[in-house]
């Protein structure tokens, strides 16, 4: 897979932005740890880790196939301020 080193600073910056922005960023941190582990460790990625990732991406795929876009991904009208 080309450009893996190029992915690292982009993903780090994205993770930092998400962490400073969102309480649910704990999930992002966990995913980031797994991603970095896959790059930097010469160990084994377990069946459980693989299956958990597969399920995670499958859940996103289910949204796509159902044509579902979460509300926070949609462009909504600007707030009305008085």
């Amino acid at each position, binding site marked *: *897979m*080309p*450009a*893996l*080193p190029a*992915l*690292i600073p*982009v*993903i*780090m*910056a*994205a*993770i*930092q*932005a*998400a*962490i*400073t*922005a*969102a*309480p*649910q*960023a704990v*999930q*992002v*941190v966990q*995913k980031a740890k*797994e*991603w*970095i582990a*896959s*790059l*930097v*460790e*010469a*160990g*084994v*990625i377990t*069946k*459980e*880790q*693989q*299956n958990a*990732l*597969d399920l995670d*991406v499958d859940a*996103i*795929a289910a949204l*796509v*196939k159902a044509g579902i*876009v*979460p*509300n*926070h*991904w*949609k*462009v909504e009208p*600007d*707030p009305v*301020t008085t």
Partner: protein
Amino acid sequence: MNKLISPFKSLLLLVALSAIVIGCRNPKLESGGAYAPTTPVIENGVTNHVATVEPDINFYRADLAFSTLYAAADGIFKFEHDNRMLLWKLSPQIKRTLDKIRPEAVAARNAYIMAREAYVAHPTPSGLTALEQALSKVRGVTAAAQAAVAEFQRNN
């Protein structure tokens, strides 16, 4: 917002240092996982699980990168959505900037999933290339969303 930063600073530093210092190694996928599937073969009454395809570490990495980038973009969009009124009063620009990114993020998400479906059906080198190209679009929109947040932080 600052309360969220300090607990994660040391973790971020550790993660960043690990990535920079150690670089890329070649981890192995345990047989029987989603990216290293096996087929049960019964011989003399004993069931063995045999790998019929090569473990696909590149596919695993692509999916993990996509999952991480998706979660990061999702977190940024959700934060703005859930705190819209407050953020709007501080600066309307963050919503407006993210609103330019949102449709592109949806398209990038969909394109990755389509490329993934095609690759799972026919795991070829060209399919992997298409997957990586779709991933680069996801990377682009996540970077843009991150830049919007960073700009907001600089100006506030």
